[in-house]
């Protein structure tokens, strides 16, 4: 589905909000800017020829080498990715969207990066965004109920971040 022509078509419609694309990957993906995410998603869902009415999955991926030697060799700067896997029940085709965020908002450690919530477009996103918030530490603006979902509510940290350290103690239970 996501050929070069398709990317050009989206670029013509959304301009700078389509930041890039990787068509060589096994599952080709399109990169969208955080600001344009909602409009692109609404278009993908509502345009009859696309009709991506089914959201499979939202995943958070953290890119950071905690090892200094590896970090020096890395081809990327530390960042966090949020990946959306979409599917169309009508046309039976799929699409991968990516949003690339800084690891911390304004580079201040502890302040979570922000992204608009797509839970208004697909209800699946409600729980999936809570999971990404919980485990990968991305804050979704406009989410109706952004609480932790798998970890306890008083848990500290976001476990799927690469620099996460297991707490020494949790309610009297030894952690490490």
């Amino acid at each position: 589905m996501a050929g070069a022509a398709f990317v050009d078509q989206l670029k013509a419609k959304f301009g700078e909000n389509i930041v890039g694309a990787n068509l060589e990957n096994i599952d080709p993906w399109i990169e969208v800017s955080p600001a344009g995410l909602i409009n692109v998603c609404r278009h993908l869902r509502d345009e009859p020829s696309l009709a991506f009415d089914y959201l499979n999955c939202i995943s958070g991926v953290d890119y950071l080498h905690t090892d200094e030697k590896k970090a020096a060799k890395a081809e990327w700067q530390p960042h966090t990715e949020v990946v959306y896997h979409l599917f169309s029940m009508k046309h039976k085709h799929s699409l991968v969207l990516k949003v690339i965020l800084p690891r911390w908002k304004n580079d201040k450690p502890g302040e979570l990066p922000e992204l608009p919530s797509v839970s208004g477009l697909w209800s699946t996103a409600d729980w999936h965004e809570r999971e990404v918030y919980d485990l990968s530490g991305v804050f979704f603006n406009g989410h109706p109920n952004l609480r932790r979902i798998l970890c306890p509510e008083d848990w500290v940290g976001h476990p799927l971040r690469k620099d996460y350290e297991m707490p020494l103690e949790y309610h009297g239970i030894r952690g490490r």
Partner: protein
Amino acid sequence: MSTTVEDPRIIEFDVRTDEMLVNMGPQHPSTHGVLRLVLRTDGEVVSEVVPHIGYLHRCAEKIGENLTPRQWIPYTDRMDYLAGMNMNLGWSLTVEKLMNYRVPERGRHLRVLIAELNRVASHLVGMGAYGLDLGTFSPFLYAFREREKILDLFEAACGARLTYSYLTPGGATADLPRGWLQKCEEFLDQFMPIIEEYHALLTTNAIFVKRTASIGVLSPELAIDFGTSGPVLRGSGIDHDMRRDGEEIYTSMYEGYAFEVICQRSGHYPHDHDYPPVPHEAVLGDCWHRFYVRMLEVVQSVDLCRQAIDRYSTSTGSYGEPMKLMQKLPKGECYLETECPKGQMGFYLVSSGESIPWRARARSSSFCNLSVTNALCRGCLIADVPAIVGSLDIVMGEIDR
């Protein structure tokens, strides 16, 4: 002071019940493991259901970032522990997709056979446990009697009864032992007539129909919006099955197999002439339909098993040797969903070119299926909540990972 009432209707109007929060679980027998539901009720009527999950969270994804794909296989077993083979298969195919590797033909037929047999076992538990939720104990025993025989077959094939780790990236850990196919055929022959017993016990049971028909109706739009999958989606009349509509690497496994996606088309289900008709009280998308889709899928899977046995026994060559334990992965990322008994189980694998994945993500079908509970239970009676949650056939191990 006397309390005289001029008009009794005034009192009736005046008596109001307060809203009350009722906690169901995490040890409630009808919540299928450690699921806690907080119900906001007005008398007997439920106005909101808030599921609290995470009691079985075992950091599977974090562990996946520290193990090679083959080492992570036992952890996938423990996600949907009632269908370990299907979980193994999903992850194995994802790794094979990334490596652009295709299992030899014999291995593919072996996988179809094992996966479909596990689907039968999982649906039997789903059926039996659903009976338990609704207060009838015997179907559970009948279901486990047959499931036990499937577990015996699995034990003969790989040595484990629940957490198999049998299908691995590359193929399977071992070929089927000698005489196994014959035993499997004997089981299928003996099992087919028994399915009618289940229908007599539950499907046509008047009490069962009363408890499930037109309860918890899930509209097709809502089903898609919430990302439900598997029998929950097909129970709402949506013709979608990953075995037919999935990606090439998965559908090629089922190439040449004759099967029809189980969902209602113009008022009829495939094979429904052999089995009880849809009761007139039932509405498409209700608990009864979800249950019925599962029961018909059992028949379908038995049929697929038979076809797989034929193909497997006539095919030659290797069944597919497992990949090396520390096999280096190519750089890249891929996502693959497979049709598991509970729904579409997806795995997302990001590789940085080492033998250990950068990120291993599991998209759980029960997770999405459970998220629809609040929408389904709004306005129903408290007694219907177990009927609705049970009809989704969730496994907490898969939701919490």
